[in-house]
């Protein structure tokens, strides 16, 4: 028994998984013989063997790995059509399977791995596969890890000491047999059993086999369908309960009222209970990953660090099970193919230790899991070649296809760009399986990769199999459900307040507490006829996607209802605006809207945190929302929407002149107005003057323009820098050459006493840490136009994350007052790291307290300066960069 008890969790899982796979395998291999080389069948057999082989590599079962690997080689050839699936080859495969089974049984009984019994099967397989070199390499790799890991897995010499040691510590420290699927009440019994079991000295065969059976028997695997139907039944019960409650409402005297109340309570408890049994923190799946990484480190000789966040994110049990394998696959992929060996990393100027970052969080009714490595990225060139050589793409198409689309080809079965097949991964199993499995649970996988920067996989899993609270709305005569999770608030406008919905070009916006809320009409989104009732109230459902909010205009808003989310049928799943379907209490089927899907459809850039925004923008230009306008002289102009505080229309006669400045009275204050270059309000003589308001810290200014045209989402890439003050440069927006207006220039012009300005240009990598959106964007734009590469983050915490991920910077500019980690703590952190101790750091603060200067210097800042002086900042930056380049230091 001690072997079993001492058996590593990984080994136990491996046994259970392998037996499950092998049960399928027998039938599949026989079917293969009957049906010939059916690609699907071959792929499924191949995957089972591949999984066994892969796991063997990790847990150091080199002999078993040998057999599995050689069988896999042969199967791989069959799959590629290079070897015929004849009776001989298939019976050879079957014999390999038998040998695998025998070895598994031996491991289960004794806890250690036997020698390969039928060497001749092995040799024949090797001969068939005809790739001895590769094979030998794999064995070597396997053996490297064998030595210590096997010893660790299995106490080879059963002695009384070890047995009693296990008896003492076993149930507490080992805990593997208490499966999360067990009822809590059962757990003590199991622990007691284990205690009892582990005190027994293993002697007789009968006892051994008795104990052995427990490895498999203690975990009960319930088919997903059983859980599904249980969940569905609870869902139906909830709906029926809702109907009953509705019927009995207002009739307290009824004899049914008491039992209905009881039913209500029991149903609620039952629903919570069923939900709870199915929820588990994602950490329970991740817990096996550090071990896998540890082993990978040894096998690959790479230095790998695993950074896991969001462990506590809870997920439905079924979903957890479903993502377990894909996650493991992807981690292996990242470590094996993504990250480079230390020498290569050093040559590329990256830290020798590669990082794999795992993150999980809830967003808008979905669970997002991201796996990010800072490795070599996907070799786009090789993907292209492979796609062409496999006949998936014509050369012409391949050369025209954008990289992002091209790399999605790695999800095709049999598609691998790995040059070397190792015992860990490769051969193109993996990504296709990952995609299939995630899609099976209604999720999506998105892959992005930047050469030499790394690869990021985003998995988005919808809330299937769950009961959620949703707002029921009506638009175009149809009802829809909006998950309550994404709903921020409801705004109702009486018909006579309709004018409060304003327009910018064709886009409707609404001023919601000093913010401009973009509006979308749901009937437009779902392409249903618009309800043109003039005297109807307007309902705005304010929804949140990532850090963006927008308003959905709907015809009617009903109650919030508990709904059972059912997956969207296969024929409808391509419609991005739906995340599921449900049946309402009255039996009607309605669609559940996916607000994130709607947002991305209408072009709101969505669901990236600020840190990735900043990165993407600098790397290859993520899209930015731009407000387009003109000065009436034919030039197209635009400014990032995020810099815009609000839009105003000022009646011409309300604009007053004080001295040489124009102002308008606004909310008891004066708003200075400045015309955009090339615009004259007198020449234009418009009765209503459109004004773009920029604001920071209560100081605002209005930019007068001829006409506000549109809000477009486009990549903001300055193609031509400008010598013209007031213009950052020229970019292509909406296929038009457009001047990007330097908002800051006008802010200075309107408030000359606060700012002054001058010009110069260098070329360095700057990390900007600033929590104010306005200044972050302003400085980024300004500094980028000066030739700096700026990476902007919102606080010290993100900055530290970035630096820990081994990003390199020549200079750091940081605010002092920030949430989470402030500038002073951030500076202290930076200075505590030897690799950053020489990086110049500039502190910026609106805080003019005299002691601030010395506090900043003490914390490690090179220079302290007042926040609102970008010209001085530029001068200081320039000076520091020049000094640094003279010294030839680089961070």
């Amino acid at each position, binding site marked *: 028994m001690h072997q079993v008890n001492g058996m590593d969790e990984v080994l136990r899982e491996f046994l259970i998984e392998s037996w499950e796979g092998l049960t399928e395998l027998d039938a599949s291999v026989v079917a293969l013989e009957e049906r010939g080389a059916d690609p699907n069948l071959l792929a499924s057999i191949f995957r089972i063997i591949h999984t066994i082989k892969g796991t063997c590599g990790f847990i150091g079962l080199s002999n078993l790995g040998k057999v599995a690997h050689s069988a896999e080689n042969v199967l791989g050839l069959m799959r590629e059509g290079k070897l015929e699936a004849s009776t001989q080859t298939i019976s050879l495969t079957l014999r390999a399977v038998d040998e695998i089974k025998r070895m598994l049984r031996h491991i289960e009984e004794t806890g250690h791995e036997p020698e390969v019994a039928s060497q001749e099967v092995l040799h024949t397989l090797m001969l068939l596969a005809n790739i001895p070199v590769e094979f030998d390499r794999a064995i070597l790799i396997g053996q490297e890890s064998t030595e210590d890991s096997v010893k660790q897995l299995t106490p080879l010499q059963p002695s009384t000491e070890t047995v009693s040691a296990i008896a003492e510590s076993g149930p507490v420290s080992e805990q593997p047999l208490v499966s999360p699927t067990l009822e809590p009440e059962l757990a003590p019994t199991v622990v007691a059993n284990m205690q009892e079991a582990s005190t027994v000295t293993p002697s007789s065969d009968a006892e051994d086999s008795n104990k052995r059976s427990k490895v498999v028997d203690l975990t009960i695997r319930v088919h997903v369908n059983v859980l599904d139907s249980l969940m569905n039944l609870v869902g*139906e019960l909830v709906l029926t309960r809702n109907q009953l409650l509705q019927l009995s409402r207002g009739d307290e005297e009824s004899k049914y009222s008491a039992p209905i109340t009881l039913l209500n309570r029991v149903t609620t408890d039952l629903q919570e209970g069923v939900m709870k049994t199915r929820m588990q923190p994602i950490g329970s799946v991740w817990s096996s990953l550090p071990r896998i990484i540890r082993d990978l480190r040894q096998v690959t000789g790479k230095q790998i660090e695993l950074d896991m966040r969001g462990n506590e994110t809870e997920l439905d049990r079924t979903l957890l099970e479903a993502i377990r394998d894909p996650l493991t696959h992807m981690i292996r992929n990242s470590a094996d193919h993504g990250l480079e060996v230390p020498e290569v990393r050093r040559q590329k100027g990256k830290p020798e230790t590669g990082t794999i970052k795992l993150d999980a969080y809830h967003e808008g009714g979905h669970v997002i899991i991201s796996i990010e490595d800072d490795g070599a990225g996907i070799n786009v060139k090789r993907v292209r070649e492979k796609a062409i050589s496999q006949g998936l793409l014509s050369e012409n198409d391949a050369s025209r296809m954008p990289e992002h689309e091209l790399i999605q080809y790695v999800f095709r079965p049999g598609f691998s760009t790995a040059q070397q097949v190792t015992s860990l991964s490769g051969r193109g199993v993996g990504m296709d399986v990952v995609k299939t499995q995630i899609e099976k649970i209604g999720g999506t996988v998105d892959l992005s990769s930047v050469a030499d920067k790394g690869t990021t996989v985003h998995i988005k899993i919808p809330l299937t199999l769950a009961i959620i609270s949703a707002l029921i709305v009506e638009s175009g005569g*149809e009802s829809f459900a909006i998950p309550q999770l994404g709903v921020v608030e409801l705004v109702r406008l009486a018909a006579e307040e309709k004018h409060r919905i304003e327009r910018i070009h064709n886009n409707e916006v609404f001023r919601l507490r000093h913010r401009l809320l973009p509006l979308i009409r749901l009937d437009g989104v779902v*392409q249903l006829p618009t309800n043109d009732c003039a005297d109807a109230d307007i309902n705005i459902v304010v929804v949140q996607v990532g850090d963006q909010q927008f308003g959905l205009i709907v015809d009617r808003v009903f109650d919030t209802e508990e709904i059972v989310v*059912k997956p969207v*049928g296969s*024929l409808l799943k391509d419609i991005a605006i739906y995340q599921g*379907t449900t*049946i309402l209490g009255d039996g009607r*089927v309605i669609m559940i809207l996916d607000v994130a899907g709607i947002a991305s459809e209408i072009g709101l850039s969505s669901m990236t945190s600020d840190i990735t925004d900043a990165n993407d923008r600098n790397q290859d230009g993520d899209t930015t929302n731009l407000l387009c306008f003109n000065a009436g002289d034919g030039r197209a102009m635009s400014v990032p929407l995020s810099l815009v505080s609000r839009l105003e229309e000022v009646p011409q006669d309300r604009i007053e002149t004080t001295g040489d400045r124009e102002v308008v009275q606004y909310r008891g204050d004066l708003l200075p107005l400045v015309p955009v270059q090339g615009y004259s309000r007198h020449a234009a003589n418009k009765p209503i003057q459109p004004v773009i308001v920029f604001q920071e810290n209560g100081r605002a200014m209005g930019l007068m323009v001829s006409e506000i045209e549109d809000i477009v989402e486009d990549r903001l890439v300055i193609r031509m820098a400008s010598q013209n003050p007031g213009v950052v440069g020229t970019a292509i927006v909406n296929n038009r050459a457009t001047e990007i207006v330097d908002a800051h220039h006008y802010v200075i012009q309107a408030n000359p006493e606060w700012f002054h300005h001058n010009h110069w240009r260098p070329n360095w990598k700057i990390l900007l840490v600033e929590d104010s959106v306005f200044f972050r964007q302003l400085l980024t734009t300004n500094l980028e136009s000066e030739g700096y590469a700026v990476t902007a983050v919102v606080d010290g915490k993100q900055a530290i994350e970035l630096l820990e991920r081994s990003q390199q910077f020549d200079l750091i500019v940081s605010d002092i007052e920030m949430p989470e980690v402030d500038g002073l703590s951030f500076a202290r952190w930076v200075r505590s790291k030897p690799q950053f101790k020489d990086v110049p750091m500039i502190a910026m603060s609106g805080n003019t307290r005299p002691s601030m200067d010395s506090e900043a210097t003490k914390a490690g800042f090179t220079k302290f300066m007042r926040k609102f002086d970008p010209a001085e900042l530029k001068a200081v930056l320039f000076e520091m960069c020049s000094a640094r380049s003279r010294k030839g230091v680089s961070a």
Partner: protein
Amino acid sequence: MSNLNSELSPTEGHRKDAASDSQYVSFWIGGQLLGVPVSIVQEVLNPQYIARTPRARREIAGLLNLRGQIVTAVSLRRRLQLPDLDSERGPMNVVVRFAGESFSLLVDEVGDVINVSNQTMDPVPATLESTWRGVTNGVYRLEGRLFVVVNVGAILNLAS
């Protein structure tokens, strides 16, 4: 040889696997007799309330609630590029099970179960429009009429 055989109701269709290969649930679309194998038919329903699914392809009529199970309804008329049925009663539902999911094929009328054992299926004529040819498996020459076997996989593959 009598070809029409009404002894078996569609819902009992999967009684015998061996027999079901040669048995079809037949239905009418615009005066044409079509059919799908009994083995994949889950049930046949009278006209149902079908919830619309905005933004879906034309061929998808909507969703129906089949005792708590949500089933996607596909209009065979639209799939075969025929005008919608102009009747008060609405279409009948032939609910089929395909690739682990249930679909309702909306048809004009449901006919008998047709037994075609002892017969060979002819290929559909090459002159048939491609919209029909792509979604049919073949044709049986029954006494007095032709019976076209529908390829459910192709019907439900709306991408093509």
